[in-house]
């Protein structure tokens, strides 16, 4: 029997539901299971309603499940809102109901047990204990996780939590839950990772030295990860006065020789667009992460979206080459950062990594081996030292790439500007210079396009392909499985490399299918528009979700069936 169980913990912000979820995830990992967890919360610090939903499986799972097997309700509202999502035979565990209210209700006085264990603060440990006990997890496993988790705290804290765990276990000792299973899956299969961590680790592996940012959900998590590691890694992180400063700081840092990045969300990215143009004009490599959230202006700060695709491809006035990546998994997010840093320096262009709230705040068990470069190649010219007087920062070349040097490291002088310029970097309004510089910058596009990986094909020879990009890929993947299990001739194309658009490869792929449907978290199918623009091929249907919530595989498979009927 395969294991695929969803536990949903709901309550108010500030109640620590995330801690319950974290503990479950740690125990599952230790038991050799796979997990995928989402975090749903409002833009407030206390109160409201939020939940953490963890899917536990014995094989890799890439998206959340729409049914809940075990609902942990730390607030009455959780029951009201989510009861209807219960799977058959599902249970509600709560401290909010009188005993025996309903058959599928397990009433546990979580807070009383916590107080008995040593303090209210252990309530989350009690709650996780109840869940694990119901699911049949060996107590020892939980005890080990607690000892590790609280290893930096005092003995008393550890003992209190173990006591709390015991009380939680005992409280449901006699209850038989039909979803309980035998916990024996061998060694941990990998590492728990959310998107924010993956992006930050990718930046560290890419040897990012300077980061600047202005706080904005959901991008701040990346910077928190970098700052937490700035004692060990050679990196300086600065909270800028605004996003305009943040992007310009990293342009300055890169100009001065450091790999540099910033991260933000749509509104902040709007403010960065002039700086993006400066990086392009001065051919200064930078990496910007845009973690998307829905809505123009402030939108929905704690929700997710894929609606900035066309924006980041075109952002800033005029035309210039740039890279845009939209990783779909945490492993891809990590690798995208490595590539973004490397390619932006190789081609001296800005690189944008498009992620989103869902990717940043969801947790996966990553079992993919991640690249760690032994050396980081910087693509900095050493030649000018031989002939400093004839050094031209923007020397025209067939590749469009000119020798880049670092200021004040030798005799050669670097002259650079955001104005249109001559080969030597001084301002020029001459017709020849303008044309030469535009052509030189654009000349990079050919080789840049060749760097782009074609979209990943799943059952690429299927009659109908679901086409998507970025983090929606996880749900699309599972939707394809669902559909094929039901006998549909479905496949998928998943884009992670967006720009320069790998048009030839996409055209070849799409020409082979009967039809393709766009699956995107926006209201106009932006990738669909781009595909049509770049290949002339049009999609024949869309499955779009723009309510800010994650997309579930069944929503895609249902949409597919609706369109096919």
């Amino acid at each position, binding site marked *: 029997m395969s294991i695929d169980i969803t536990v949903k913990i709901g309550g108010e912000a500030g109640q620590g539901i995330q801690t319950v979820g974290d503990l479950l995830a740690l125990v599952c990992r230790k038991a050799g299971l796979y997990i995928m967890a989402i975090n749903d919360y409002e833009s407030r610090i206390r109160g409201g309603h939020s939940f953490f939903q963890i899917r536990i499986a014995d094989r890799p799972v890439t998206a959340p499940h729409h049914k809940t097997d075990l609902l942990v309700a730390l607030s009455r509202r959780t029951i009201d809102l989510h009861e209807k999502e219960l799977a058959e035979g599902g249970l509600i565990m709560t401290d909010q109901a009188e005993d025996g209210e309903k058959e599928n209700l397990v009433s546990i006085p979580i807070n009383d047990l916590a107080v008995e264990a040593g303090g209210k603060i252990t309530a989350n440990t009690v709650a996780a204990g109840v869940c694990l006990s119901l699911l049949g997890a060996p107590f020892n496993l939980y005890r080990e996780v607690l000892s590790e988790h609280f290893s930096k705290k005092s003995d008393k804290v550890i003992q209190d939590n173990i006591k709390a765990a015991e009380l939680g276990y005992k409280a449901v000792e006699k209850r038989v839950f039909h979803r309980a299973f035998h916990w024996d899956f061998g060694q941990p299969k990998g590492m728990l990772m959310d998107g924010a961590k993956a992006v930050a680790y990718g930046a560290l*592996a890419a040897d990012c030295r*300077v980061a600047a940012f202005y706080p904005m959900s959901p991008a701040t998590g990346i910077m928190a990860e970098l700052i937490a*590691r700035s004692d060990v890694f050679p990196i300086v992180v600065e909270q800028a006065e605004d996003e305009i400063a943040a992007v310009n700081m*990293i342009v300055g840092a*890169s100009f*001065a020789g450091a790999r540099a990045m910033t991260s933000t969300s749509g509104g902040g990215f709007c403010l960065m667009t002039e700086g993006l143009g400066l990086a392009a004009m001065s051919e200064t490599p930078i990496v910007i992460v845009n973690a998307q959230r829905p809505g123009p202006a402030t939108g929905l700060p704690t929700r997710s979206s894929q609606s900035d695709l066309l924006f980041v491809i075109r952002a800033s006035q005029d035309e210039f080459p740039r890279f845009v990546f939209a990783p779909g998994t945490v492993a891809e997010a990590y690798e995208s950062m490595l590539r973004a840093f490397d390619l932006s320096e190789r081609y001296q262009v800005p690189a944008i990594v498009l992620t989103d709230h869902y990717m940043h705040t969801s947790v996966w068990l990553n079992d993919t081996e991640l690249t*760690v470069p032994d050396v980081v190649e910087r693509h900095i010219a050493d030649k000018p030292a031989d002939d400093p007087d004839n050094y031209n920062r923007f020397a025209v070349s067939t590749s469009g790439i000119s020798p880049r040097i670092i200021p004040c490291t030798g*005799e050669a002088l670097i002259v650079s*500007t955001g104005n249109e310029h001559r080969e030597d970097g001084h301002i020029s309004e001459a017709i020849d210079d303008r044309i030469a510089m535009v052509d030189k910058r654009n000349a990079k596009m050919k080789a840049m396009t060749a760097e782009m990986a074609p979209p990943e094909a799943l059952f690429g020879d299927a009659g109908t392909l679901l086409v998507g990009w970025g983090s929606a890929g996880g749900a699309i993947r599972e939707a394809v499985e669902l559909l094929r299990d039901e006998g549909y001739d479905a496949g998928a194309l998943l884009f992670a490399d967006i720009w320069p658009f790998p048009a030839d490869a996409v055209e070849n792929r799409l020409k082979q299918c009967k039809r393709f449907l766009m699956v995107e978290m926006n209201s106009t199918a932006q990738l669909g528009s781009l595909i049509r623009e770049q290949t002339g091929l049009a999609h024949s249907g869309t499955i779009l979700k723009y309510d800010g919530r994650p997309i579930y595989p069944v929503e895609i498979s249902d949409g597919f069936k609706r369109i096919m009927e």
Partner: protein
Amino acid sequence: MVDVNDYNNEYENKWCPGCGNFGVIAAMKDALVKQAIAPHQILLISGIGQAAKLPHFMKCNMFQTLHGRALPIATGARMANHDLNIIVNSGDGDCYGEGGNHFLSAVRRNVDITLLVHNNKVYGLTKGQASPTSDMGMVTKIQRHGVISEPFAPLSVALSLGAGFVARGFAGDTEHLSYLIVEAMAHRGFSLIDILQPCVSFNKVNTYAWYKKRVYKLEETGYRPDDFEEALRLARQWGDRIPIGIVYREEKPTFEDKIPGLKEGPIISRRYDASKVKQLFT
């Protein structure tokens, strides 16, 4: 030996004849030569405007950036390499208007750079609109009935935010300005020189003659720039008598001093260590 000719380049100068910026560039070259700094040892960073064009007219490392953004660029450059010797050239519109927030933050951070604001009290490059420092009542083609806002007071603002080196120079007194630049560059931490710079094309009020009648040198009055209250008073003095010179000086830990990661030297000079990355995954 560094010679002033080392700093001359062949790029055509684009300022109006008689512009106060000529005084500023002469003072800068003089100050750099006096400190025996060669062109490859200095980095000029500027924004956009007539003032911000200055780096093009000097042979040196330079990055002319965006309107208002020279300070964050310079801050980022120092984060990467705090051995860099950086002078920022900016205009009053560039620095106090478009880049106002960056100005406030750069002062508060105490980034170790020297900021020269060529304050012509007008937008030169865009042909004579009022700037943040234009005096009330100044008439321009756009401000037809005269400027109606209070002028931005750079020296008082910098002082109130804790700036450690605050000075005012005059483009019509190159020798004095050169002395100020040398002092500002020697100062550890953020240093501001607000330079009274006549714009012969668009500012018909604050001319060379207007200034010459009014400016006096603080150094000649026996003033010692370590009295904060007195500095605040002098910073606000305007009208019949306008002080030039070092208004306030106080060394404090710099932005770079306060970042633990920079203790071992410039961050770009540190080594990449793959084993540390691998440890992230254990």
